């Protein structure tokens, strides 16, 4: 990218136009915390998610239910309600939640109640929505707008609407799933090295857990938590960033394990022992 020295560009701007005006950075408001980070309801039922305002100003949050699809890279894509398939449609229809809008003082938490009642004639399976928590940006007061407009020139007020989504699962019936790992390898993206891995899944539900890489002597070299394979994919890739020090230890046969999280029992889901190339 060609970069003029900044002062030269500034001088040119002032000399040529004389109407350079300040952009107003948006105020950081609406920082938030959500717990827990995933909800599983077996056969329906109810659950609570706590939303807390961790910012320094009061904020109003909007709670939404959205659809996502996982792709073969392990990334999410948005699914608009009108292009939902039958399973996604059923998930949207069975989830109830309240409230949908919460105003919180700094440090104040509030619970959002979620309930789900799958229809008796619904096929067994895993139904999932993603619950979104986002702050609604405070509107500029007419006085502020008038003041900025009176200054003339071009001013930009760009407000990020930022938030968190967590998956909410409803499982109906006895669902089984298993997974496998294959083909661990090193890949580079820019300066960063990753261990890349093919993960595959069979069965009627998602799998979720942590991936850990150990040397032949049993030393844990890398670990990544919160890795899911959703039912809409049978395969996904996983990339775990590793430092040069970690990479140096990853020689010879490496055992890579995919386990449930310790708090869910820590059961082994899949493993592969292989040299990483």
């Amino acid at each position, binding site marked *: 990218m060609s*970069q003029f020295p900044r002062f030269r560009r500034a001088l040119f701007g002032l000399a040529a136009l004389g109407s350079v005006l300040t952009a107003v950075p948006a105020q950081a408001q609406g*920082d938030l915390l959500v717990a827990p980070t995933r909800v599983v309801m077996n056969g329906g039922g109810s659950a609570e998610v706590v939303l807390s305002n961790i910012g320094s100003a009061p904020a109003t949050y909007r709670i939404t239910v959205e659809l996502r699809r996982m792709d073969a890279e392990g990334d999410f894509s948005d699914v608009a309600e009108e292009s939902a398939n039958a399973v996604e449609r059923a998930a949207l229809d069975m989830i109830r939640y309240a409230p949908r809008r919460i105003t919180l003082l700094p440090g104040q938490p509030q619970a959002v109640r979620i309930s789900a009642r799958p229809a008796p004639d619904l096929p067994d399976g895993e139904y999932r929505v993603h619950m979104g928590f986002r702050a609604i940006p405070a509107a500029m007061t007419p006085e502020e707008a008038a003041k900025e407009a009176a200054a003339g020139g071009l001013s930009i007020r760009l407000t990020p609407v930022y938030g968190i989504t967590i998956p909410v699962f409803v499982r109906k019936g006895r669902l089984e799933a298993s997974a496998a790992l294959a083909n661990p390898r090193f890949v580079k993206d820019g300066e960063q090295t990753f261990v890349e891995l093919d993960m595959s899944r069979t069965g009627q539900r998602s799998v979720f857990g942590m991936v850990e890489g150990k040397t032949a002597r049993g030393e844990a070299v890398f670990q990544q938590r919160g890795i899911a394979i959703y039912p809409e994919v049978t395969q996904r890739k996983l990339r775990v960033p590793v430092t040069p020090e970690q990479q140096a230890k990853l020689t010879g046969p490496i055992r890579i394990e995919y386990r449930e999280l310790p708090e869910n029992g820590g059961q082994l889901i899949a493993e592969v022992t292989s040299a990483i190339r």
Partner: protein
Amino acid sequence: MRNSLRLAVVGAALSAISFASAANAAATATATATAEVLDTLSLAADSALDFGQIAANTGGTVTVGSDGNASKTGTLVSTGTRAPAGFTVTGSAGATVLVSLPDTSAGPVVLSLNDPSWDVGVQGPLPTMELDSFESDITDVALSATTGQGTFKVGGTLTVGSAQHPGVYNGTFDVSVEYQ
């Protein structure tokens, strides 16, 4: 008041505790209290996406990259501090979250002139500017194995029209961190 107890603890310690087995404990008369520490995920905005100062001239684009590099096209003048938006994610140590940015394949984010006195009948359509090509320095944030924190930055491209009408332009764009 199980809920209020739970919420009070969340507020104080940023983790929720519930006495899930209270009913069992009562039935068996054995005082077993189970504390369930829930995983938390938080997101804080550290800095705003700033396109600096712009004089429209005959228009062009200003791009602020997530790497902090700024560039422009066209005859507009772009000066001042230009910086990407910065966010901090805090969650369980070693966890991974995805970053979602506005999908502008269906259309850009539109910033509109904030002028309540604008008369569409006389002055024509309300002036707008467009924001697209959002990108972040990382799409999968791996939270630190020790602190549980990760950061990411978001940049984009602003398109300014020829003789863009002066005034305050408002717009919002969505950024989400998504737990799997």
